[in-house]
């Protein structure tokens, strides 16, 4: 089979699998977040955490829960890395250096999983399993919880309650992330992913690092985390040994974000509302995939930076999925991509990661854009703008604006300062436009909580460690607070009955408009910067 045919087959299989799975999983998610019964293990957790699972919070209470929980997560991860020498399975790797340790703690709590460390030499299995893997689960569950709070904002009427953050968090972990990743960890082991508590094996006199990879690999993709247990991430044969494991990992990245559109449609009582979001995500995803694939297949050295066992199509598929979701795992070196291919995966992040976006973050990201789209569309048909029966006024537009502004602001300021710092030249692997692309990529990755690395840039200096960590924090939590505020003001409203004059949000017109807004917001913001980086690279 030719590589192209194999690639098309993989894409076809992937789409079929997602089409089949997203309905039951989406409906299951809807039940998880609306049911009133608690599992025994959940009640135990609530008792241990002294939480009353019946008490719902206002939007600000919910936000305080998210921020407080995440802050504690950073502190615990920080301590865990500092006390590593006294932990089992540390293999003498010592306490992690402060700048790196702060960056890593922030990175995993914010679901970014940017890795400025080399796992094989810096972290032992205890920190990996008890620290990073725990955050892989809970940071993804936080994203899910926030998305569900926003959906409740649309569904509920005249209430100031958005749900119970602690219940949402625990249910996300216990009922969604744990069972699915347990199943897929076994699948990945069967496909040849390593699972061992040893530090390494000696092969032909050479020490090769091994680790409990499969268990972390499943949640790494499912929770759109992306932090590899090996430095080479999913390009490493122990994390991603063959085409089948590659396809399973791509599937895991996409499955929850895709299913959430179904959950959304189910919960708002009109499945077509979810279909239209999925349609927009899908078209943009397919479009960028086609560009990356074409660009890489027609590059000067198509296989540079790619694993031979994957080839161009599977590398393009993985790269497009990892940047379109908020994952950031890599199975190839994006730095070696062509100007157009590398620029497109960068663009995936700059779109705000809504193709289909991270776990939860993708759904609330595109809903915020839908709010802005409907505001303008409402004006254009001469009605007080509304979306899903909720009026879009000053508070709603302000919250949406803050959420949308956060990422470009922190990204452009960070990348701008870095571009003129004298020390930057030494950190870059390449001069000229490609060097600028490397800077833009790093800051886009951190600001969007993606975590994938273009590579080719050395990010261990204090400036990079600190400035990227700040980007991850602001890029994660400013939109979350804004989204919760939006949910709060939506939930407080009474639903406006839909009449003949209401603009429908289920047809191709709305889909086109929404897709246009997604592209336009990113294009207007980033075209000048991209012109000097990827565009200058890509133009002959």
């Amino acid at each position, binding site marked *: 089979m030719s590589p192209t045919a194999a690639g098309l087959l993989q894409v076809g299989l992937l789409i079929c699998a997602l089409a089949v799975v997203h309905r039951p999983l989406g409906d299951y998610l809807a039940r998880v977040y609306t049911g009133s019964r608690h599992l025994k293990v959940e009640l135990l957790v609530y008792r241990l955490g002294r939480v009353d699972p019946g008490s719902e919070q206002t939007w600000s209470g919910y936000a305080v829960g998210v921020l407080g929980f995440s802050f504690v997560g950073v502190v615990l991860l920080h301590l865990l890395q500092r006390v590593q020498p006294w932990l089992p399975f540390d293999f003498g790797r010592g306490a992690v250096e402060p700048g790196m340790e702060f960056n890593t703690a922030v990175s995993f709590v914010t679901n970014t999983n940017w890795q400025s460390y080399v796992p094989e030499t810096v972290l032992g299995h205890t920190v990996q399993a008890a620290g990073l893997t725990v955050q892989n689960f809970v940071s993804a569950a936080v994203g899910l919880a926030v998305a569900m709070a926003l959906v409740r904002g649309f569904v509920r009427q005249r209430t100031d309650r958005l749900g119970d953050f602690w219940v949402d968090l625990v249910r996300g972990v216990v009922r969604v992330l744990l069972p699915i990743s347990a199943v897929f960890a076994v699948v990945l082991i069967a496909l040849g992913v390593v699972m061992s508590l040893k530090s390494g094996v000696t092969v032909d006199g050479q020490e090769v690092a091994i680790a409990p990879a499969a268990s972390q690999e499943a949640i790494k993709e499912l929770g759109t985390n992306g932090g590899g247990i090996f430095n080479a991430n999913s390009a490493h044969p122990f994390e991603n040994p063959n085409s089948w494991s590659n396809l399973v990992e791509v599937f895991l990245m996409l499955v929850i974000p895709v299913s959430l559109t179904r959950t959304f449609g189910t919960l708002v009582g009109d499945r077509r509302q979810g279909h239209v979001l999925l349609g927009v995500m899908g078209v943009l995803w397919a479009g960028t995939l086609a560009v990356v694939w074409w660009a890489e297949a027609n590059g000067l050295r198509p296989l540079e930076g790619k694993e031979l066992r994957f080839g161009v199509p599977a590398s393009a598929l993985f790269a497009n999925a990892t940047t379109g979701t908020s994952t950031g795992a890599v199975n190839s070196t994006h730095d070696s991509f062509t100007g157009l291919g590398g620029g497109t995966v960068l663009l995936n992040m700059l779109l705000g990661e809504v193709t289909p976006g991270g776990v939860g973050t993708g759904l609330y990201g595109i809903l915020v854009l839908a709010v802005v789209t409907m*505001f*303008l*569309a*409402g*004006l*254009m*048909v*001469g*009605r*007080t*703008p509304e979306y899903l029966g909720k009026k*879009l*006024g*000053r508070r*709603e*537009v*302000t919250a949406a*604006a803050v959420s*949308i*502004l956060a990422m*470009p*602001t922190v990204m*452009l*300021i960070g*990348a*701008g*300062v870095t*571009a*003129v710092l004298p020390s930057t030249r030494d950190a870059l692997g390449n001069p*000229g*436009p490609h*060097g*600028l692309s490397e*800077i833009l990529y790093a800051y886009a990755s951190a600001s969007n909580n993606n975590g994938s690395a273009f590579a080719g840039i050395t990010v261990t200096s204090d400036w990079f460690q600190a400035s990227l960590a700040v980007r991850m924090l602001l890029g994660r939590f400013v939109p979350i607070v804004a989204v919760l505020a939006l949910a709060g003001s939506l939930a407080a409203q009474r639903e*406006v*009955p839909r*009449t*003949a*004059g*209401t*603009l*429908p949000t289920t*047809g191709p*017109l709305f889909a086109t*408009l929404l897709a246009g807004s997604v592209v*336009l*917001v990113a294009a*207007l*913001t*980033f*075209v*000048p*910067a991209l*012109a*000097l*980086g990827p*565009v*200058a690279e890509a*133009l*002959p």
Partner: protein
Amino acid sequence: MIADSPQRTRVLIASLPDALRKLHPRDQVRNPVMFVAWVGSLLVTVFAIADPDVFTVAVAAWLWATVLFANLAEAVAEGRGKAQADSLRRTRNDAVARRLTAAGGEERVPGAQLRVGDLVVVEAGEVVPGDGDVVEGIATVDESVITGESAPVVREAGGDRSAVTGGTTVLSDRIVVRVTTRPGETFVDRMIALVEGARRQKTPNEVALTILLSTLTIIFLLAVVALQPFAIYSGGEQSVIVLTALLVCLIPTTIGALLSAIGIAGVDRLVRRNVLATSGKAVEAAGDVDTLLLDKTGTITWGNRRATELIPVEGVDERTLAEAALLSSLADGTPEGRSVVELCVERYGLSAEATAHEKTGEFVPFSAQTRMSGVDLGDRRVRKGAASAFELGDVTRRIVAGIGQDGGTPLVVAENDVVLEIGKQLLITRGALTTFSVANDLAKYFAILPAMFAAIHPQLGRLNVMQLTTPQSAILSAVIFNALVIVALIPLALRGVRYRPSGASALLRRNLLVYGLGGVVTPFAGIWLIDLLVRLVPGIG
């Protein structure tokens, strides 16, 4: 397009002094988008004075022109309102009231000293000193100053024809009026305040749009400010003049410049049609219109009109019209109202009994101010009234005129109000110009980015699709286009985007095509054309 009639040019020139006065930062700071343009103009001017050359001075001049044109738009709109307020004020000032004292006597006091509850006498030839209800007598009243309707109307004690409005003139007989409104809050006062914009607060939609425009401005500010370090990294540091020119071109100056003119002109149009909106908010709420319907009553004799026919318009089926007409007349006890009910029952088999749900509706009685009556039922608002009380589409207007020529009296029934398409038009105009403004940026990027960076990355010259002559001419052309488009769109802002009642999707599709796609294409052509002229200037081309 800039001045398609000498009259319009005259209006623009007459408003110039006001526009210049508005350059004061106190006025500018209220509009975030134009404030950024204003600061940019100032910045470039400083550089132009320090190091003058043709390009710098030209950019500075055109940036100021951008700000000035925005002021001009507002000044023209305000000017129109002011003229109208003056004529209204004349009707009010000279009113002297004949107040009845407790002792049964009569005293003459200025209209401004009346209190709510005072009883005043108005006789033939006198002006009603304030808003109130007739409590005694019957009179014919000339309300043309308020309504524009030259035929006098009858006002009498009791019933639904008892309301009189300050400023109107009693033509015959004598009435006693109980004052219901304090001086300064009367119908005419509110009308004056509204058109003068003295109490014109931003409507919720306007506030929300301003937030969106500010957001866009911040985004562009970021994009341009961050561009300089990237340019320095790439070895092509840019001058402040070029960066400022890029920024002013990108921020939504078109809508920012015209936003307040749109609002002022909208209220002005409303008042011209004799509809008093207590606030701009009410106007916008009225924009949530669903259907426009028409019915007809044949005149036999005054006071005994009977509805004879229902004529639906523009995609409304006859039964829907009958239902709306019935609903608007159920609580209307006048002979006209009853005849509409009868017609609907006889011809369309509808029930004259209100359902339990319909009974929960709130009946809105006829009043001289609105000249319409109707019912509010949940979020449905059905109104029935004289054709002149409604802003009508072209087709409807023709039908109305036809009925009038045949000797009939047309009545208009409208669902979900009403006051008009003006509310809708206001929103549409803002939305359309925002879309246009943002869509324009694509062409501006294609003009300015190659001009900035083709020197360091020659391949970016390929993006110069308009084949603009030199970097200077490209940047200047974009700046000039950006300024001129404001002037070109002033008439549209004052008139409002044309609105035809149709489905929301059809309306959106049309406006996206005209203002979205049009907004993408127009600047490519405009900038290219301007470049043809600008390149002739020595030092630019």
